[in-house]
């Protein structure tokens, strides 16, 4: 089948409504922010040169990287069994369980964050419980609190792709393996998991990458005490001392880095043999 017919609508849309705005962002990143806040258009690399400063990378980017990785791993560990459990069910129960995963997100983001404020605040129940157990953990205003909020927000992004892949796996393979004497664990690890790899990768992509640029959850739950790259970018646009050119440059550098890594990885995937 000719690729172009399938490709054109989506591609055309993205070119018009994404690539063009991105082009505008690129132009901004090459501009100069005058002291009075006005943008002076031109071609200047000054913003990119400013980004060579390790200040942006050690703390904020490092944190974003680590938190993105942790969020991905934790949501994978928590989410895979759920996706598996749902996929194994049949009929209305399956759909019900699936909707129940996503139902909390049919409320509103801010309201959920405030609920987390109530749960995680230093005078709240969870903090009291932890102190009673001898653990004096900061939750709000600490990386742990941010991680909790991130995992909460991104679990569906892990569970749904996983479910979509696991759902159609041929479980008779598992039965065959078990008939041959394999344990549940073996049949899972050697058969099911490799077959579900595309789903795992999809979930990882949909969690890791957006979390790298996340700013609202870290800003609210981290209280400005957990440096994150996305928060820095947001401050360049909406902060008291705006600097759109620098913010645009930061965003573009982040995106380029991620693309490079993605490109490398997918290239490797194409080369390697997929599961037999």
């Amino acid at each position, binding site marked *: 089948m000719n690729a172009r017919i399938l490709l054109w609508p989506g591609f055309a849309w993205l070119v018009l409504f994404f690539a063009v705005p991105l082009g505008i962002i690129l132009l901004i990143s090459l501009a100069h922010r005058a002291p009075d806040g006005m943008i002076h258009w031109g071609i200047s690399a000054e913003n990119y040169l400013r980004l060579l400063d390790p200040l942006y990378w050690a703390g904020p980017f490092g944190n974003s990287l680590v938190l993105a990785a942790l969020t991905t791993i934790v949501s994978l560990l928590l989410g895979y069994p759920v996706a598996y459990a749902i996929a194994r069910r049949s009929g209305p129960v399956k759909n019900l369980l699936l909707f129940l995963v996503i139902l909390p997100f049919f409320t509103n983001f801010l309201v959920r964050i405030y609920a987390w*404020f109530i749960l995680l605040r230093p005078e709240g129940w969870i903090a009291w419980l932890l102190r009673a157990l001898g653990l004096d953990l900061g939750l709000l205003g600490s990386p742990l609190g941010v991680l909790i909020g991130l995992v909460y927000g991104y679990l569906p992004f892990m569970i749904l792709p996983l479910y979509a892949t696991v759902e159609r796996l041929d479980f008779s393979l598992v039965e065959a393996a078990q008939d041959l004497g394999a344990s549940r664990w073996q049949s899972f690890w050697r058969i099911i998991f490799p077959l579900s790899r595309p789903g795992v990768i999809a979930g990882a992509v949909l969690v890791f990458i957006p979390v790298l640029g996340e700013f609202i959850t870290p800003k609210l739950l981290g*209280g400005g005490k957990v*440096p994150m790259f996305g928060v820095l970018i947001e401050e360049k646009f909406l902060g008291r*001392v705006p600097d759109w050119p620098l913010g645009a440059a930061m965003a573009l550098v982040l995106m380029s880095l991620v693309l490079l890594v993605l490109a490398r990885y997918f290239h490797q995937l194409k080369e390697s043999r997929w599961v037999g």
Partner: protein
Amino acid sequence: MTLTRIYSFIALAVLGLVGLEACAGKQAPHELHLFIWANYIDPEVYRLFEQEFGVKVIEENVDSNETLILKLQAGVTGYDIITPSDYAVEALIRQGLLAELDLSKIPNFQNISQRFRGLYYDPQNRYSIPYLWGTTGIGYNAQKLESPPTSWADLFEPSRLERYKHRVSMLDDPREALGAALKYLGYSVNSTDPQQIEAAKNLLLAQKPYLARYDSETYDDFLLSGDLVMAHGWSGEFAKARLENPAIRYVIPQEGGVIWTDNLAIPKSSQKIELAHTFIDFLLRPQINARIVNFLRYPSANDAAKPYILPEILHDPSIYPPDEIPERLEWIRDVGAAVQLYERAWEEIKSR
């Protein structure tokens, strides 16, 4: 469903939407569009205006001066009234985004106190009229502190912070936060001296481990819930919080604080400049202005409104500071090229 049918569906959907909204996009002649802070004007005020002038008021909200400036700078049109703070007025004037006011059409401008006319950012009130004002200082829960704070030292000295570790917050704003530190060190909040700014930065870096958070939006909430005992914030928020819990107090530290105004202004792109003038004049009526003050708990720049303002507000020193204080209050102003120093200092504070 063939592929062509799918594509036609998409195309039709898009066109249909466009068509639908091509009609809805136009603005009705007897409507006024506000782009202001939320919960700012009592809807009753709109009703009264509509009754008297037959004009419907439509309110849209923005939560910060920066977002307001961003939208106007980007070319968003359709707004008739905005309420920028002092520094935002300055920025908007410079960028040519404000319409000139014809004060002859705003007779109630006479109600504005002399003290608030011709301020630094608009010496002839050609573009803006001060509306409300406020101060920045320290709010606290009197029940949870051994003694009330009197100085910025209470927020910056580790020895005083130790027992309230993770129970204090600062505004998430480089000019306000660095400004507070500068004030404590005896400097101006508009300092352009790199050494002074560096000293302020170091103060904030030393303070950071003791902070619960940097917060400009929910510090009043956390103060009320007991998670904070002291917060760097704006006078009116603490006044409102005190309605909920009388133990919440506010003080302007002895070294001084910040004063700011919210102003009424008209974007240059407005198509209803005449009508906007009428609305501004309406808002400056004593009773209308008082109604808003009684609700918001911020002091008014309008002298004629005073008889209608609740006595408990007029006599509250944390809302209407006593007269000797204004000398200790500074406006946060544009510092020109030195703004990069502030930007850099804030980046360091936030990134370490």
